[in-house]
């Protein structure tokens, strides 16, 4: 997943949690980057028609941005589910965040052929919990 898609996903999740525009500070916290980096990328996404940005309020995804963000969130959900249910990784959320930049969408699509994901994905993603609300955490030992 490229950096732009990670931003779009973050904006999507913050918008859901805040029920409004995604503030720069909230995005910086979620992405663990500086507010200046957020402003720079949001500007780029705005130029590409994926985000509307209002000063002092924050970023809001356009319709095209929402489509891209939902795809990115599906990819993230696949990675989380794969880590939790196939590799039985306890810290599947932390590891999914660390690995999402290296896992391409096409790779996630292949992994998707062995996991059980709901049709309503990503609507069932719980932004606060940072995971699908139907995801069962691994019970056994991890594949470490």
């Amino acid at each position: 997943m490229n950096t732009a898609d990670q931003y779009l996903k973050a904006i999507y999740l913050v918008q859901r949690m805040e029920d409004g525009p995604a503030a720069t500070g909230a995005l910086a916290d979620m992405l663990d980057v500086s507010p200046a980096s957020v402003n720079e990328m949001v500007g780029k996404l705005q130029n590409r028609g994926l985000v509307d940005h209002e000063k002092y309020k924050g970023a809001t995804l356009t319709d095209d941005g929402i489509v891209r963000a939902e795809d990115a969130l599906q990819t993230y959900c696949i990675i989380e589910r794969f880590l939790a249910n196939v590799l039985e990784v306890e810290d599947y959320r932390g590891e999914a965040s660390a690995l999402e930049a290296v896992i391409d969408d096409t790779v996630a699509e292949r992994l998707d052929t062995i996991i059980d994901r709901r049709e309503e994905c990503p609507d069932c993603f719980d932004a606060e919990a940072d995971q699908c609300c139907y995801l069962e955490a691994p019970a056994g030992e991890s594949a470490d």
Partner: protein
Amino acid sequence: MSLGQRVATDHQLARLLQIGAVLEEVVESRAYHHLDSFEDEEGVDDDVRHLLEHAAEESAEHRSRLEALIEELDAETVPYEEINKLVEAQYAQTKPEDFDGLLYDQLCNEETAYKFYDDLIEAIEASESEFSIDREQVLDTLRQIREEEAEGVEDVTEIMERRA
């Protein structure tokens, strides 16, 4: 969440190699499922049968090379039988509809594997971290596998072009 594409630790490297091993297991298992499902269908000639058998054998061989690296990193892989069961469980929903779909699925397998190893090599090269395993040994293995995946893409596209 972290931005950027670097492999920083042994743990992260092992995890990515585990993912590579599972991808190979998926390719192997799906190739055998395709052979079973499409055996009696018209159009599955010797070339295609050979392609699928070769893909399955090559994936098993890639997996064993990845497993050797993963073991050196003190991690484990998911046994093939477990992945085979997961493929089995989802195969009915993800099975190609027809013979062209089968070839396309095989092309996706090869292209996806190529992309995965290409990204992984790039991420290791971009990292300045030291791993407990020899970095060049890992890169050599991954580059060889990537090369074989590129050949796999060519093999499938040749058959597709011949049938067009």
